C-alpha cells in the first residue's frame, strides 16, 4: 500500500486553501487535491460579475498556478471525481478507477444550483450559473438587444441582471417573494438595490408566480399565474444552491442541510472533515446555532481551519460569516447573521451610504450590513464585524451616531 496522506475532495476555494494550508502548517507527507472540473481552482464570484461583462474573451481567475501546486508538492488530480469512500479501508475511489489511500480526508465538494421545477418544454434549456463553462455560455448569449429573463431576486440573479443590462440586453427579473434579497439582507438595503436596478432599466416583477416555460420558434414563453406571457431569448435561473452531499451520503456520513460537521468541522467519521458550501456547522458565536453558508470567505477560512484540525489541532471554528455582492457600482456587505436579530439600528453615513447594526434581545451586535458605492463603507463594516466577534453590546445611540468612531466602541 502507498503511504497514506491528506486527501482533499473538491478543488474549489475551500479545497485549495486547505491543501496549501496543510503544507504551510508543516505537514510533510502526501497531499492530494482531487477536482472534477478539469480547471485549476478559480474565483467563482467573478462568474456573475466581471466575467459576464468582459469585452474580450475572458479566462478563469485561477487562485493558484500549477507551478505553485508543484512547488508545494500538492498532487493535483484534475478532471476526475471521487466516486466512493471506503471508510474502513481509508481509501477513496475515483471515476477513473484510481484508488488513493488517506489518513485524513477533507470533503470540500461545494454546492450546485437548485433546479427549477416547472411545467413546459422550455424548462430543460434554462441556464444555471455555478461553473466557469456556465459563465462562458451565458456571456456568449448575452448579446446586445437579447431579451433576458432572470428567475430569482437573490444575489446571483441580481448580479446576472446587472451584468446583462451592462451588455445591452433587455432584462426582466422575476421574484416570487414580496421583495428582493429576502434572505439575510434588511429591507432598506433591498430597496436601494431595487431602485438602482430599476434606474438602470431592469424590469422587476415581485410576487411573480411562474406557471410554465414553453419553447418554440426560437424563443421562450414564460407564463405567469396572472396570465402575463413574457417572450424572451434567454432564461437564467438563480433560485439558490443545494449542497453537494451525494458522496458523503453514499458513504453513510450524517447529513443535515449539508454534510453535518461539529464545531471542529469533523463529520460523523472522525477521520473525515468537511468545509465550505457543502457543510453545515454549529456556530460557536451564535449559541451553536447550526448554519450552512454559501460565501467565498467562509470557504477560504473553513478550508484553512479544517487543515489545522486534520493535523490534530482540535480548534472550534468561529469566524464571523461575511459576504459581499457587487451590482453596478454598488457594493453590499453583510457580516454576521441578520436573522438572529430582533432590532435594527441605522447609521446614516450620508454620501457614503447606509450601515445597519443588527441586535439580538440582549442588545448584542449579531450582524452588520451596509450598502454604498466607492468602497468607503467597507472599513466600518469591518469594525462592525469585530463588534460581532467580540459579542459587544454598545449603546444603540452610539451605533446610530455617525460622529462616534466605531473603533471606540470596541474598547
Amino acid at each position, binding site marked *: 500500500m502507498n503511504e497514506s496522506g491528506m486527501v482533499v475532495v473538491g478543488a474549489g476555494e475551500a479545497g485549495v486553501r486547505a491543501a496549501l494550508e496543510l503544507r504551510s502548517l508543516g505537514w510533510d507527507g502526501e497531499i492530494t487535491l482531487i477536482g472534477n472540473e478539469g480547471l485549476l481552482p478559480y474565483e467563482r464570484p467573478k462568474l456573475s460579475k466581471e466575467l459576464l461583462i468582459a469585452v474580450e474573451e475572458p479566462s478563469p481567475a485561477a*487562485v493558484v498556478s500549477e507551478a505553485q501546486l508543484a512547488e508545494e508538492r500538492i498532487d493535483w488530480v484534475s478532471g476526475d471525481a471521487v466516486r466512493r469512500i471506503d471508510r474502513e479501508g481509508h481509501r477513496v475511489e475515483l471515476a477513473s478507477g484510481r484508488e488513493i489511500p488517506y489518513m485524513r480526508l477533507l470533503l470540500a465538494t461545494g454546492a450546485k444550483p437548485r433546479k427549477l421545477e416547472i411545467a413546459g418544454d422550455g424548462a430543460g434549456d434554462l441556464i444555471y450559473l455555478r461553473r466557469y463553462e456556465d459563465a462562458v455560455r451565458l456571456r456568449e448569449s448575452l448579446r446586445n438587444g437579447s431579451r433576458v429573463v432572470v428567475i430569482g431576486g437573490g444575489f446571483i440573479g441580481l448580479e446576472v441582471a446587472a451584468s446583462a443590462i451592462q451588455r445591452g440586453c433587455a432584462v426582466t427579473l422575476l421574484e416570487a417573494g414580496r421583495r428582493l434579497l429576502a434572505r439575510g439582507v434588511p429591507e432598506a438595503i433591498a430597496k436601494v438595490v431595487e431602485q438602482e436596478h430599476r434606474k438602470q432599466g431592469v424590469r422587476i416583477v415581485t410576487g411573480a408566480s411562474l406557471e410554465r416555460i414553453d419553447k418554440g420558434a426560437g424563443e421562450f414563453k414564460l407564463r405567469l399565474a396572472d396570465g402575463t406571457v413574457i417572450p424572451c431569448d434567454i432564461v437564467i435561473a438563480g433560485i439558490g444552491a443545494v449542497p453537494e452531499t451525494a458522496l458523503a451520503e453514499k458513504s453513510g456520513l450524517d447529513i443535515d442541510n449539508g454534510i453535518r460537521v461539529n464545531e471542529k468541522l469533523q463529520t460523523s467519521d472522525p477521520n473525515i472533515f468537511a468545509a465550505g458550501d457543502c457543510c453545515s456547522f454549529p456556530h460557536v458565536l451564535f449559541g451553536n446555532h447550526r448554519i450552512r453558508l454559501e460565501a467565498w*470567505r467562509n470557504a477560504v477560512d473553513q478550508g484553512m481551519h479544517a487543515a489545522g484540525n486534520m493535523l490534530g489541532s482540535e480548534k472550534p471554528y468561529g469566524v464571523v460569516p461575511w459576504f*459581499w455582492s457587487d451590482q453596478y457600482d454598488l457594493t453590499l456587505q453583510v457580516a454576521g447573521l441578520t436573522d438572529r436579530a430582533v432590532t435594527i439600528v441605522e447609521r446614516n453615513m450620508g454620501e457614503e451610504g447606509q450601515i445597519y447594526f443588527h441586535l439580538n434581545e440582549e442588545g448584542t451586535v449579531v450582524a452588520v450590513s451596509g450598502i454604498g458605492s*466607492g*468602497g468607503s463603507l467597507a*472599513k466600518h463594516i*469591518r469594525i462592525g464585524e469585530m463588534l460581532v466577534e467580540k459579542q459587544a453590546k454598545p449603546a444603540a445611540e452610539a451605533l446610530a451616531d455617525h460622529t462616534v468612531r466605531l473603533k471606540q466602541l470596541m474598547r
Partner: protein
Amino acid sequence: MSGEWIEVCAVDEIEEEDVIRFDHGERTFAVYRTDKGHFYASDGYCTHEKFHLSNGLVMGNVIECPKHNGRFDIPTGAAKRAPVCVDLRTYPVKVESDSVFIKID
C-alpha cells in the same frame, strides 16, 4: 535607484493606526501610520483587483483590503492572506519638520 522625495502631508493629518490616499501625477499611493507611530508607504491599489487600500483597515502592522479582506504586511508589502498573493510595492518614507515624505522613482 534614484528617486525624489515628495511631501505627502503633515504628520498629524494621518491618524494613528490609519491610512490615507496620496495621488501624485498619474500615480496613487497609500501612506500609513501604525499604532506605534511609524510611517510607511505602498502602491495605492491592492494587487488582487484595482481597489484602493486607503479605504482599508490598519491593524498593527497589517493593512486589510476593504474589497475581499486580503492582507499585506505594511513595512514589507508582503501578501499575507488570500485572495492576495502578489506582494505590494513599498516606498521609503521619512519624517522631516513635521511632514511626511515618500521617495518615488
